């Protein structure tokens, strides 16, 4: 059992949902990212998505585009990101997913990448522009090393595609809650619900929801119907706004704690009641 699976299992037994945080590695530099990650973990991040900056991020809205530009200006590259993960891994069991476009991986070399990512302690990969139809060329190297290729499902995905997607999926299913790019539209639970049910009927993998979720209230409403909620642009934007403040880490911890609280059902009161595995139905 890898760290992703284990984390979802633990959360389920506690009646909680996963808080999945995204941040762009190297925004504004890798030292900051490396110092920040333990703070986010301590504050309640259950899974971390580490974004690899790319010059042409066609699936991202302005917030993450700008973060990628800042990161690239600071000279961030994939090798340095993997080194950072390897250092963090010595002190942490936080499940880590690399969120990337395909070209930086392809340029690195698929086999070399898979080998070094696994060695660094990466648990999963989300290659946003690598649909199942093209994924075999990477999966042949990641699968034997236990790296999960996380699958994306969109509101536009029909049942036939969905069947193919879940067949090759591992780790969790990432449901894109809006038709569009990251962080630009506000998703509605009522609109996502039929899709979440559609996915559940086809797979036992945990389902996480992301793209545009930004407030604790939204987190709470989606957490009631999914196994995890992904906060990306909202965190990246928060960090961009508050990045220069002296008590950044303390304030970031507060920001994350507030969101994490929204993944825990209110009836549990945050106490260790422990059961209630029915939450989410």
């Amino acid at each position, binding site marked *: 059992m890898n760290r992703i699976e284990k984390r979802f299992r633990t959360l389920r037994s506690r009646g909680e949902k996963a808080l999945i945080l995204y941040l762009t590695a190297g925004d504004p530099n890798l030292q900051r990212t490396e110092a920040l990650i333990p703070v986010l973990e301590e504050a309640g991040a259950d899974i971390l998505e580490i974004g690899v900056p*790319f*010059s*042409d*991020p*066609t*699936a*991202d*809205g*302005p917030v993450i*585009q700008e973060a990628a*530009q800042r990161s*690239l200006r600071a000279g961030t*590259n*994939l090798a340095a990101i993997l080194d950072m993960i390897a250092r963090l891994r010595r002190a942490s069991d936080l499940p880590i997913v690399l969120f990337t*476009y*395909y*070209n*930086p*991986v*392809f*340029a*690195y070399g698929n086999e070399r990448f898979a080998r070094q990512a696994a060695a660094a302690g990466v648990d999963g990969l989300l290659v*946003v*522009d*690598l*649909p199942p*139809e*093209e994924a075999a060329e990477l999966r042949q190297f990641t699968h034997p090393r236990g790296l999960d290729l996380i699958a*994306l*499902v*969109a*509101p*536009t*995905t*029909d049942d036939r*595609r969905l069947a193919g*997607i879940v067949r090759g999926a591992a780790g969790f299913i990432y449901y*894109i809650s809006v*038709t*569009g*790019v990251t962080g*630009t*539209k506000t998703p509605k639970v009522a609109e996502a619900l039929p899709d979440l049910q559609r996915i559940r009927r086809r797979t036992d993998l945990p389902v996480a929801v992301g793209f545009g979720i930004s407030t604790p209230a939204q987190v709470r409403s989606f957490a009631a119907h999914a196994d995890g909620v992904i906060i990306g642009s909202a965190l990246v934007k928060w960090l961009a706004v508050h990045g220069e403040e002296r008590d950044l880490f303390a304030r970031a911890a507060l920001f994350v704690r507030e969101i994490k609280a929204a993944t825990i059902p209110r009836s549990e009161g945050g106490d260790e009641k422990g059961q209630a595995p029915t939450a989410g139905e």
Partner: protein
Amino acid sequence: MRRELPDKQGHFGAFGGRYVAETLMPALIELEDAYRRAARDPAFRRDFRHCLHDYAGRETPLYFAANITRRLGGARIYLKREDLNHTGAHKINNTLGQALLARRMGKKRIIAETGAGQHGVATATVAALFGMECQIFMGEEDIRRQASNVFRMEMLGARVTPVASGTATLKDAMNEAMRHWAARIRDTFYVIGTTAGPHPYPRMVRDFQSVIGREARRQILKKEGRLPDYLVACVGGGSNAMGLFHPFRKDGDTAMIGVEAGGKGIPTGLHAASISAGAVGVLHGNKTYLLQDGHGQVRDAHSISAGLDYPGVGPEHSHFHATGRARYLSVTDAEALAAFRFLTTCEGIMPAMESAHAVAHAMKLAPTLGRDQIVIVCLSGRGDKDMDIVAAQKEEKR
């Protein structure tokens, strides 16, 4: 006999394919199905032919350029006059095809990316023709450089949306068009302007542009009674080149030469020669040769010709390069400019700066060939749009 490419997933050998986020995949599959059905439908083919003939003004002449042939003292040079099309370039062949398909699919909105504005103008033109809403994405930098084309698009009723992200040029305009398409996928048709992008675009654009090569092949057989020895065309994304090359692909005795933009020279790094000086990668939904750094970050292209100023190239060209079916080389800004002047003064034909790249190579090639050999150069567009650039270069020289 070899199977026709691309394969079912849009691969041309090791290139092409469909590398996009899941949100776009269903739309691409829908488009592929619709295109496959349309391509087999006699009514669609008739409509397309009719538009090319009566609206775009085809067929375009295959002109024997006697003056430059004499001056160069070698092979006989023919110019395929795509510059005589409505809107002044080959771009209209493709936008007519895609707009007809959009109409057939019931889409009322079309969007496009543009660099110099030629594809934007050709798209805005067909949107006006078919009464469709039209939005064009254009880099802020290009908007500044190509103000008159922005005005043309707006006159045609299109909304021009400036793109400030990244380097604010063609590749960023294409990024933004893809983002916008993802957000409006249900009612919007994305008209890609070249033989790049995710499957089925490289194939579809090639098919629409193949009218260039089909005509040229028929015309040269009529005029010379035989096939040409060389085809020469400029390659940015590569749609005019693929349009000319593809119908000749099985004619083994006809060599094909794609001319990339060498900018200020390959060693300076300021160029747009993706095949000559790039590496294989994935951008804008397909695997192909790209200008990129060692970390897979896409680099800026540079060319005097805005239409060639693109860091990628159509995947079928990458395939032709890999198999040796076509040869790719580059000419510099200065050589293209000299070719512009040469053709203008010798033949009274002002080529687009893009097409001047093809002419520049023909000027090197023809004198090395015998007088009985034949070269067809694709004159993909006319040069009126480039007056400011030519004038600015003159200024610089003074």
